[in-house]
C-alpha cells in the first residue's frame, strides 16, 4: 500500500482526510441470535444450502418470540473488554423498523441508545509509533438474510429470491470516531481488529464470506484562504476486503476534493449520502436512497428482557481475554527473539498460536520450536492439507522432538520422518526414533570404524587429498559416504570432527 499524495495539491489546497468506520462482525456462535437454528457464520454450517438454517423464529412466523443467545452477549463483552470499552451493566433491545424482503419481521432487533459496549479505544502502529483510535460504541444486533437476483449457481431467475440462512446471525457493530487520517490507518485498524476478534474466538473472520464488513464514513477538511471547509460525509456500504476499504477511501478523498472544487457544497444537516464500491472500476458509485431512510421508529422490544451484567459475569468473561495478537507479536519478537516473519506466521492463525503456546508450555525452547513449526511441520501441513495444529502431532510430541534434536539424539535430517510417525502414533518421539532406527550413533568406536572404512576407499583418495590440501568442500563427499554406511544414524557433527582429525594426522 502506498501513502496517498494530497489530491488538493495540484489546486494549491491542503486537504486532510477524516474517516470513521462502522465494522460489522458476524459472531460464530453455534446458534442464531434469537433462536436455536444453526448459525451460518459457524464453520460447521458454511456450506449449508439456501434456506436450510431456518426455524419459525427466523422466518418471523406468527406467534414466535425471540430468546436471547447468551453466548453472543458474552462474545460482545469480550470484544468490548479487548477494545477498552466501558461495558454496560444494563442494556435493552430495540426494534429498528424498515421494509425489506430479506428482513422477515420487517424490523431488526438491535440496540439503539444503550449499546452493550460504550466508549473505548485501540492503539494502532503508525510510522513507528502508535495512534489511538477511539471507539464510539459497539452494539449487538441480528443480521438480515440475502436477496438474490439470479438462481444459485448463476442461472436466470424471473423474480428475486430470498435466502434467510444469514437472517438472525449475531452481528456486532463496532463504531469508531473519525480518527483515521489515511486509508492506510483504516486498513491497519481493520486488520488488527480482525486479528483481535479471531484470537478472541468470536468470529471466523473470513472476509470473502462477509464475516467482517466495513463501512467507512469519509469526508475531507479543505484549507483555503485561512478557512477550513468540510465536505459532506459519505458512507461507503458493505466493503468486505481491505483492498476495497483502501481503494474506496483513496478514491473518495480525490472525488470529494474535486466535487468541492466544482460545486463548493459543504457539510450540513442531512447532507450525508451513501455510496457503494465498484471493485472492477475502482470507484465509488452513488446508491439509491429512500427519503425516509432515517425513520426507523426505534422502540424497546417488548418481547425481550433487559440484559443485566453483574460482576461475576464480567469477571468470568474477563478471564477469557487472551493476550491480544499485537501484544503477542511484540513479545514473540522482543522477548522470545523470533524473527518477525516467523512470529507473524504463527500468530496469523489463532489455532496455530495456541498450539505453539502449548509446545512452549511443554518446555520447548521458542526458537527451535518455531523453526520446527515453520519449516518441517508447515511443510507436512501443506502436503496433508490441514493446519499444523491439526496433523495429529501433539504439542508434547513436538516439544519432545525439540529436546531430542537439542541433545543430539536425532539429527535434523530425520525430523520429517519422525513427524510423520507422530501423526499416527501417540508414543513419545524418543521411542519412535528408537523403533525406527533414527537415533544418532554417538559411539566413537562405531563412528571411527565407518570413517576408517571410507578414508581407506581407493575411489575416495582424491577427496581425501583435496581435503588434506585445504579444500574444505571436499569433506562433503566423505561425509555422504559415512552417512550412507550408517544408514543416516551417524551424528554429522561428530563425523566431521573425526574425519578432519584423521585426515590432518
Amino acid at each position, binding site marked *: 500500500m502506498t501513502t496517498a499524495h494530497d489530491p488538493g495539491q495540484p489546486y494549491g489546497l491542503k486537504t486532510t482526510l477524516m474517516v470513521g468506520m462502522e465494522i460489522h462482525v458476524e459472531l460464530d456462535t453455534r446458534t442464531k441470535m434469537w433462536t436455536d437454528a444453526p448459525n451460518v457464520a459457524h464453520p460447521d454450517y458454511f456450506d449449508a444450502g439456501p434456506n436450510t438454517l431456518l426455524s*419459525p423464529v427466523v*422466518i418471523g412466523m406468527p*406467534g*414466535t418470540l425471540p430468546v436471547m443467545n447468551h453466548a453472543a452477549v458474552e462474545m460482545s463483552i469480550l470484544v468490548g473488554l479487548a477494545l477498552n470499552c466501558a461495558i454496560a451493566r444494563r442494556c435493552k433491545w430495540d426494534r429498528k423498523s424498515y421494509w425489506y424482503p430479506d428482513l422477515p419481521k420487517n424490523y431488526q432487533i438491535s440496540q439503539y441508545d444503550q449499546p452493550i459496549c460504550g466508549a473505548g479505544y485501540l492503539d494502532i502502529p503508525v510510522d513507528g509509533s502508535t495512534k489511538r483510535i477511539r471507539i464510539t460504541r459497539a452494539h449487538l444486533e441480528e443480521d438480515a438474510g440475502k436477496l438474490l437476483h439470479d438462481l444459485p449457481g448463476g442461472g436466470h431467475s424471473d423474480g428475486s429470491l430470498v435466502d434467510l440462512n444469514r437472517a438472525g446471525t449475531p452481528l456486532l457493530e463496532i463504531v469508531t470516531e473519525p480518527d483515521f487520517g489515511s486509508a492506510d490507518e483504516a486498513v491497519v485498524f481493520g486488520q488488527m481488529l480482525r486479528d483481535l476478534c479471531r484470537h478472541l474466538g468470536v468470529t471466523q473472520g473470513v472476509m470473502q464470506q462477509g464475516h467482517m464488513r466495513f463501512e467507512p464514513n469519509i469526508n475531507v477538511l479543505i484549507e483555503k484562504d485561512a478557512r477550513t471547509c468540510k465536505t459532506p460525509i459519505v458512507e461507503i456500504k458493505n466493503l468486505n476486503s481491505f483492498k476495497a476499504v483502501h481503494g474506496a477511501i483513496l478514491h473518495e478523498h480525490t472525488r470529494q476534493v474535486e466535487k468541492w472544487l466544482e460545486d463548493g457544497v459543504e457539510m450540513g444537516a442531512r447532507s450525508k449520502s451513501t455510496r457503494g464500491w465498484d471493485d472492477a472500476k475502482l470507484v465509488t458509485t452513488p446508491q439509491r436512497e429512500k427519503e425516509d431512510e432515517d425513520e426507523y421508529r426505534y422502540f424497546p422490544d417488548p418481547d425481550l428482557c433487559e440484559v443485566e451484567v453483574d460482576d461475576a459475569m464480567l469477571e468470568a468473561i474477563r478471564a477469557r481475554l487472551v493476550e491480544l495478537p499485537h501484544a503477542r507479536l511484540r513479545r514473540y519478537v522482543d522477548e522470545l527473539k523470533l524473527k518477525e516473519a516467523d512470529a507473524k506466521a504463527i500468530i496469523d492463525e489463532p489455532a496455530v498460536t495456541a498450539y505453539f503456546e502449548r509446545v512452549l508450555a511443554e518446555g520447548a525452547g521458542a526458537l527451535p520450536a518455531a523453526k520446527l513449526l515453520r519449516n518441517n511441520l508447515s511443510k507436512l501441513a501443506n502436503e496433508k492439507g490441514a493446519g499444523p495444529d491439526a496433523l495429529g502431532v501433539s504439542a508434547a510430541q513436538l516439544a519432545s522432538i525439540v529436546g531430542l534434536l537439542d541433545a543430539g539424539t536425532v539429527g535434523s535430517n530425520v525430523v520429517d520422518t519422525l513427524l510423520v510417525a507422530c501423526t499416527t502414533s501417540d508414543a513419545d518421539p524418543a521411542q519412535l526414533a528408537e523403533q525406527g532406527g533414527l537415533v544418532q550413533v554417538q559411539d566413537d568406536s562405531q563412528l571411527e570404524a565407518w570413517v576408517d572404512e571410507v578414508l581407506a576407499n581407493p575411489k575416495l583418495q582424491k577427496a581425501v587429498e583435496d581435503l588434506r590440501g585445504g579444500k574444505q568442500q571436499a569433506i562433503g563427499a566423505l561425509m555422504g559416504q559415512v552417512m550412507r554406511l550408517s544408514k543416516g544414524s551417524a551424528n554429522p557433527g561428530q563425523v566431521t570432527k573425526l574425519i578432519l582429525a584423521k585426515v590432518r594426522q
Partner: protein
Amino acid sequence: MDPTQTTLIDLRNAIASKQVSAEEATRAYLDRIDTHNDALNAFRDRMTDYALKRARAVDTGEVTGRLAGVPIAIKDCMCHTEGTTACSSKMLEHYRSPFTATAVQRLEDEGAVILGKTNMDEFAMGSSTENSAFGVSRNPWDLDRVPGGSSGGTTSAMAADLAAAALGSDTGGSIRQPAAITGLVGLKPTYGRISRWGLVAFASSLDQIGPVTHTLADAALLTQIMCGKDPLDSTSADVPVESDLHDVDGEIDLAPGGGKLRIGIASQYLDESANHPAVTAAFNEALAVYKQQGAEVVEVDLPHTEYGIPCYYIVATAEASSNLARYDGVHYGHRTGEPTPNGANAIQHLMSQSRAEGFGSEVKRRIMLGTYALSSGYYDAYYNRALKTRRLIARDFDTAFEQCDAILCPTTTGPAFKIGDKADDPLAMYMNDIYTVTTNLAGIAGVSVPGGFAEEDGKRLPVGVQLIGKAFDEKRLLRIARRYERETELWKHRPAL
C-alpha cells in the same frame, strides 16, 4: 347425563368415572356446534376429525391427564399444528402453523380435546367481533347483540355450551369484557404468568392468554395447568406455580394482623351516570355479599384511571404497528394477485398491495396510529409519555394493594350492545375497555364473574363484576372471587337457544 350442560370439572370427573366416554362427550359438543354455529358464528375453524381422534385416544387410555377427554375451544390467534391459525383475518386465512402454542400444548398434555378455533376481532383488535374478516359472532342471550370482543367467538361458544371451556386472550379487556356480557367467568392472568409462545401478537407487553369458563374452579384448574415459565418466552415469569392454585374453596391468606378480608372500591369505577343500572346493581350486590361475610370495605384511589384509554391506545397501537409489519405477502400469508410492475418499486408494490388487501379497516387504523406514535419527533410526545403514564397507573395499584386484598369494580359499563350500534364510532367502541385496560397496563390480574342481568327489549342480558388483584396472586384473587360466586351461583343460568 348431558355432557354439554355441566362444568369442565364435572365433565372431567364423569369421563374419568366412565359415566360418559370422551368420544360421546366430544360428539355431543360437535353435534351442538353443528346445530348452532350457523346462527352464532362462534367457531371460525373446526377440528372435528382431530378432536374425535384425540377423544378416542382418551377412551383407549393412550391419553390421560387432569383434562382427559374434555372438549375445549381456543381462540383463532393461538397456533395449533392442526387446522388454520387465521386471527380471523383475510391476511392469514389459509395459514397453517408449524407449531402449537405452549398454553394449548400444556392443555393437550393433560388430555384436553381441542375442538377448533373461535372467531375474534381481526388480530384481537376490537370489542365486538365485528372486525372479524369472517363475520360477527352472536351473543347467545340475544342474537341481535354482540358477544363482546375480541374473544367474542370464545364467549359465544362458551355461553351456548359449544365447548366445556375455552381460551381467550386479553390485551385491554378482550377476555373479561366478552365474558361479562355473556354470563361467564373470564380471567386475565398476570402478565408473564402464561407463555405467549404461539399466541399471535397484537401488543406484546399487554397480551395474555386466559380461560373463559362457567365457574371459577374451572378457570383455576386451566390456569394452574397453563401457567409457569416457558423457555420459549423470555417474558414468561419464573414464578412457582402453587400446588393448590386450582382449589378455589381453599383458605384465603390474609395480611397478618387484621385477619379480615379487605375489599377495595375506587370512585373512578363508580360513576352512576356512566354505568347501566344493572351494572350498578350487580356491583352493590357483590359488595353486600362481601360485607355480609365480614369483609372490610376500603376506599382506594386510582387517580390515573382516566388516562388508561389514551395510554393503552398509544402503547397497544405502537406495538401492533411493529408486530404486524411481518405480514407483507413475502414469506407467508395473503399475497396480492395483482401483477407487480417491473422495476425498483416492484417489491414495495407487492408488500403494500398485499397489506391493503389482507387487513381490515380497524387493523389499518391502528397500524397508522401506532406508526404515527413511534415516528421521530412524536416518540417523546406520545409513546414515551404513554410509558410514563403506564408507570403511574401501575403505582396507583401498588398503593391500593397496600390497603386491600382485591379491588371490586364493574367489568363493563353496560350489557351487550346491538350489532352495528358502535361499529361506525371507533371512540365509543374503545370506551368498552375503560374498566379493563388499566389491569393490562399495570400487568396485574383481573377476573370477571357473572353479576346478574339487565333487562333490554324483553331479553335478559348478563353483566359482570370484576375483581382485580396483585401480580402473581391469582390464587388469592380466585378464592376471593369464589366467596361471591358461592353465594350467587349465577353461572347456573344458561341462555335458551
